[in-house]
């Protein structure tokens, strides 16, 4: 056994070129596989982090019985593992709110008792005017604007029946309610969406609340209410005691499944000390549940994008095995002469495979690490990343061994068994077509890809599924169509090449003669009569290129879609949202225009409570000329395919309105129809009815919160409501970060502005699949594609030189000079390269087109087509051509060193 192992080891060392050819593909396969797995893990961690980032209140512990002591819950929870902060909150509803001395009062609202630390621990309740005062109250800025309340005024709160005495308190500050949703988030335990946001809110210091309100409110009866979509009954306490928790998220596992287990255990441990008295609402777990599905989809995406490359690289090894079958036959004869039996031969091969697998895996891991460093920089060498790499290394090595078995061991065993059994001698000379050709598997696969595509589309598989906060459902069938297409196109390419080389010999020769002269004809003859080898080389090179092209196009389109989605979410490059109390006018847009690098600025008025029929809708007032210059308005967002035409029609019609497709469907409104709407006048707190004319329909309109149901001319809206206020501003610039800083510097001292730009905006209400960082994968893909392409051509040329040494020696003896041999080699290499290039780009574009359909599911705005990243593709093709050129150069060098007299003596 040891002797056989030593023989195998000597064989590996004695034939360095052959070993190199076997190991080359395996090295690339293991390297790419390890890098891909690392990317999957890295993305999983980032996606988990991204998914959790928008969660403001990680957990909410709610007392479900009125008998729990106010401080007991807070004190117990504070000491728990992972709990960073625990803020006590008391909540009660009021019947109405008014300013003392004024006639206008609000509808029912809610009072929150929050300690001063709450405003620092959670940053979604900015104090936009006044301050926290232990003896005063703060109110929401929208309520203050609506009721005309200022800091220093006195409020009057009325409560439900049973408390006759109104409660009066002085206003010490105003709180911005723009992003206050986390305060109200309370999903239905049965799975429904839960309660909505309350418009009118008062904030009291806990001491004031406990002293003035809690004793009286606690006397009110406990009620139950049916909530959410499921209509489940929830106990409503007159004073609800809550504790809002912030956790140390860095202590959570990167794997969402493990993280979910951690959070569930924490929830149970928080509820455990208060049996039947406390329910913990696990907001982090809710987000993670969605992220888990997204991450699974991302894993599938990554693997489907990268696995073809891994398989192709591994096939390089198999290709080298195929090309070296003659030399193996000779070696086998020698072994048989020396008395080796079938078992010995198979064992030697197994040991050789083991050594190749070990060598390929080690080299692959080194190469993988080098390419990661090259594409991502030394910054990836963090402890956390190294921890992530460990499992990838294990899987990659395992994959390396499996690929060696498939690419080397099994084909060699098959050949040796056939040789030993004498099968080769009994094989008839009649060549039969491979099974797939007889079955027309290429056509069937392509048809199957089409059918899968059609059925998936017909069943709504390509429709966006990511409603707010939910995961994207990427059906397996979405990946199946490109997979079938890839196999079908590959087999079709092999069939076409075979046809071209066997039946198109004359045209091929004519073309090559035109390009390379008489030696083109010799090259053509050579290629057409070695159609199998040439076909394999073209197929392998073309598929490698198609892998790179498909990935490049997909990543390019993904980047375009991502940028488009973010621009749509922001509205333009920068969005400025002043507090409701700021009372800014459209003139502020002119001030923004004066800042450096600002190319456009527009203001918008927003009426979130306009009435269409009896339903509240968001109506925007826009200034068409500046909106056209500033807002993100791709034509695909408009039903008539033209942003300019739709908005032009609005500008020409003073009482014109453009509306969202869903509203048009809901109210059966067509272009040309009259639309009656009631706009809210905040000054009079009255609605004003206006008659508008529908002039256009959009699918999306870049405004603020992706909630533009209707859009009017701003002047028309101003005249109708009597208010010229502007609620938000969009800024167009080539330097979003710089302009954001400029706006903050210029206006931030006097105004609490909410500034968002395309660089910082995170899509909190959508799938984390839209925020994948695929740039690293793109960089890796370029390197590996170039290497696989160069290697496949290199392996082909080297093997060709090896197997045709005598032929080239004869040519030299017959007077062929170096230039003519170079011509011959160039003609063959260029033919293979150009056919591979054309086929690779074609198949790559086809696969990319199918993969891009996935983006219709992930992104809000469906892709109009493929984005051709010219620089990326040029780099990819340039690198591949460079690799090919290098292969030809090396082959030329080997050819010039050919010792004719020695070669001619070879048997």
């Amino acid at each position, binding site marked *: 056994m040891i002797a056989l192992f030593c023989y195998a080891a000597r064989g590996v060392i004695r034939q360095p070129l052959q070993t190199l050819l076997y190991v080359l593909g395996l090295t690339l396969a293991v390297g790419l596989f390890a890098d891909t797995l690392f990317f999957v893990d890295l993305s999983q961690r980032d996606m988990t982090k991204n998914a959790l980032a928008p969660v403001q209140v990680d957990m909410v512990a709610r007392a479900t019985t009125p008998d729990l002591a106010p401080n007991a819950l807070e004190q117990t929870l504070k000491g728990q593992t992972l709990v960073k902060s625990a803020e006590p909150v008391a909540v009660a509803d009021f019947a109405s709110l008014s300013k003392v001395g004024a006639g206008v009062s609000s509808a029912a609202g809610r009072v929150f008792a929050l300690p001063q630390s709450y405003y620092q621990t959670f940053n979604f309740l900015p104090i936009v005017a006044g301050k926290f005062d232990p003896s005063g109250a703060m109110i929401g800025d929208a309520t203050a604007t609506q009721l005309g309340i200022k800091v220093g005024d006195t409020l009057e709160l009325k409560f439900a029946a049973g408390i006759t005495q109104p409660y009066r308190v002085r206003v010490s500050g105003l709180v911005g309610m723009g992003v206050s949703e986390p305060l109200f988030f309370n999903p239905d335990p049965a799975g429904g969406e839960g309660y909505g946001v309350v418009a009118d809110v008062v904030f009291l210091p806990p001491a004031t609340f406990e002293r003035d309100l809690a004793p009286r409110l606690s006397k009110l009866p406990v009620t139950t209410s049916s909530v959410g979509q499921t209509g489940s009954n929830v106990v409503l306490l007159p004073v609800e005691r809550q504790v809002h928790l912030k956790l140390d998220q860095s202590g959570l596992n990167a794997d969402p499944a493990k993280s979910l287990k951690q959070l569930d255990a924490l929830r149970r441990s928080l509820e455990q000390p208060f049996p039947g008295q406390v329910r913990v609402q696990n907001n982090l777990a809710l987000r993670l549940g969605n992220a888990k599905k997204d991450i699974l989809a991302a894993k599938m995406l990554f693997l489907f994008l990268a696995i073809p490359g891994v398989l192709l690289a591994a096939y390089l090894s198999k290709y080298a095995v195929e090309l070296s079958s003659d030399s193996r036959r000779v070696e086998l004869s020698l072994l048989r002469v020396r008395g080796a039996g079938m078992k010995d031969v198979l064992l030697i091969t197994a040991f050789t495979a083991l050594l190749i697998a070990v060598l390929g895996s080690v080299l692959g891991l080194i190469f993988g690490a080098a390419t990661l460093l090259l594409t991502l920089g030394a910054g990836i060498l963090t402890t956390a990343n190294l921890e992530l790499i460990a499992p990838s290394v294990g899987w990659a090595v395992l994959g390396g061994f499996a690929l060696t078995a498939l690419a080397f061991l099994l084909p060699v065993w098959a050949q040796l068994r056939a040789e030993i059994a004498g099968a080769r001698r009994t094989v008839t000379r009649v060549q039969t077509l491979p099974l797939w050709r007889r079955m027309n598997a290429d056509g069937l696969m392509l048809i199957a890809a089409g059918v899968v595509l059609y059925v998936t589309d017909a069943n709504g598989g390509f429709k966006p599924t990511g409603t707010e906060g939910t995961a994207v459902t990427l059906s397996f069938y979405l990946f199946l169509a490109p997979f079938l297409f890839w196999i079908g196109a590959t087999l079709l390419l092999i069939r076409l090449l075979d046809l071209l080389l066997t039946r198109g010999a004359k045209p091929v020769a004519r073309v090559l003669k035109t390009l390379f002269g*008489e030696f083109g004809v*010799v090259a053509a*003859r*050579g290629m*057409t*009569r*070695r159609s199998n080898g040439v076909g394999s080389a073209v197929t392998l090179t073309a598929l490698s290129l198609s892998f790179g092209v498909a990935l490049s196009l997909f990543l390019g389109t993904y980047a375009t879609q991502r940028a488009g989605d973010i621009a749509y979410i922001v509205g333009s490059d920068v969005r400025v949202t002043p507090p409701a109390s700021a009372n800014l006018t459209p003139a502020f847009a002119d001030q923004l225009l004066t800042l450096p690098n600002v190319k456009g600025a527009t203001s918008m008025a927003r009426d979130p409570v306009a009435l269409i029929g009896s339903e509240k809708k968001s109506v925007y007032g826009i200034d068409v000329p500046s909106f056209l210059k500033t807002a993100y308005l791709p034509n695909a967002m408009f039903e008539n395919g033209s942003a300019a035409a739709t908005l032009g029609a609005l500008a020409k019609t003073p009482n014109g309105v453009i509306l969202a497709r869903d509203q048009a469907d809901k109210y059966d409104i067509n272009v040309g129809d009259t639309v009656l709407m009631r706009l809210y006048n905040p000054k009079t707190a009255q609605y004003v009815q206006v008659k508008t004319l529908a002039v256009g329909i959009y699918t999306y309109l870049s405004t603020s919160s992706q909630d533009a149901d209707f859009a009017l001319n701003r002047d028309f809206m101003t005249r109708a409501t009597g208010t010229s206020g502007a609620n938000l501003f969009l800024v167009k610039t080539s330097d979003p970060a710089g302009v954001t800083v400029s706006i903050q510097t210029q206006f931030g001292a006097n105004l609490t502005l909410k500034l968002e730009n395309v660089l910082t905006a995170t899509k909190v209400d959508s799938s984390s699949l839209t925020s994948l960082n695929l740039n690293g994968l793109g960089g890796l893909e370029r390197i590996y594609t170039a290497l696989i392409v160069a290697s496949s051509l290199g392996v082909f040329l080297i093997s060709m030189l090896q197997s045709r040494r*005598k*032929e080239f*020696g*004869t*040519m*030299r*003896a*017959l*007077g*062929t*000079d*170096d230039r*003519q041999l170079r011509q011959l080699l160039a003609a063959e290499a260029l033919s293979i390269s150009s056919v591979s290039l054309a086929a690779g780009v074609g198949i790559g574009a086809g696969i990319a087109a199918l993969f891009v359909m996935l983006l219709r599911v992930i992104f809000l705005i469906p892709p109009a087509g493929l984005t051709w990243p010219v620089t990326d593709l040029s780099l990819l093709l340039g690198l591949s051509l460079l690799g090919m050129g290098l292969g030809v150069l090396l082959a030329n060098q080997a050819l010039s060193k050919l*010792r*004719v*007299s020695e070669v*001619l*003596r070879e*048997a």
Partner: protein
Amino acid sequence: MTISAGAPFALETRDLSRFFDLGDHQVRALEGVNLRVQCGERVAIVGPSGGGKSTLLALLGGLDAPSAGQVFVGGADLYAMTERQRVQLRRGQLGYIFQGYDLLPALTVLENVEYPLLVAGLEPHQRTRRATALLNEVGLGGKEDFLPDELSGGQQQRVGIARCLVTEPSVVLADEPTGNLDTTTTDAILELLRVATAERGMTLVMVTHDPAIAALADRIVRIQDGRLETKA
């Protein structure tokens, strides 16, 4: 580059040696070989395997580089020439016939015979005319479109002879031209070779280890352990 008409010998070697370094020791394949071959002469180089016959033939054909000494072809010092000049000489003045035929497997019989003319830059119609005529002469008329592996060994060697003769070389160098053939075929091939070279006044240097074949030559040169045993 053509062999000078007034050259005293078609081929001449002076103190020709060829050594090969094999790691820690040196193999002396040829040592101090002095050989003169007259124009139109038929010379057989005989000797045991490994004696240096093929090495000498390769050096005579400009396919190797001597360790020492000189080779003159028609009076011109072969290894004092540039590679380009040597290639020109190989194209026009030297013809080769190989033991294993060494036809180009991807080319048809006609294309194989045309090949030396193609590398020499002749027009297609000239190539085809000359190659077809030679194929008829060697008895392979009608086999022009066959591929080499569709022919028997004897037929392949006939193609090899036609390919050698098509450029009308002054010197034909044949390395065991019948080494892979049976007796009957061997006789036919040797007769073809003898007649074809004699008719054209070509010099023939033939390497063989078969004394019967060597007997057909005007002169036999024996080589053993890298040295000539008879006076050349």
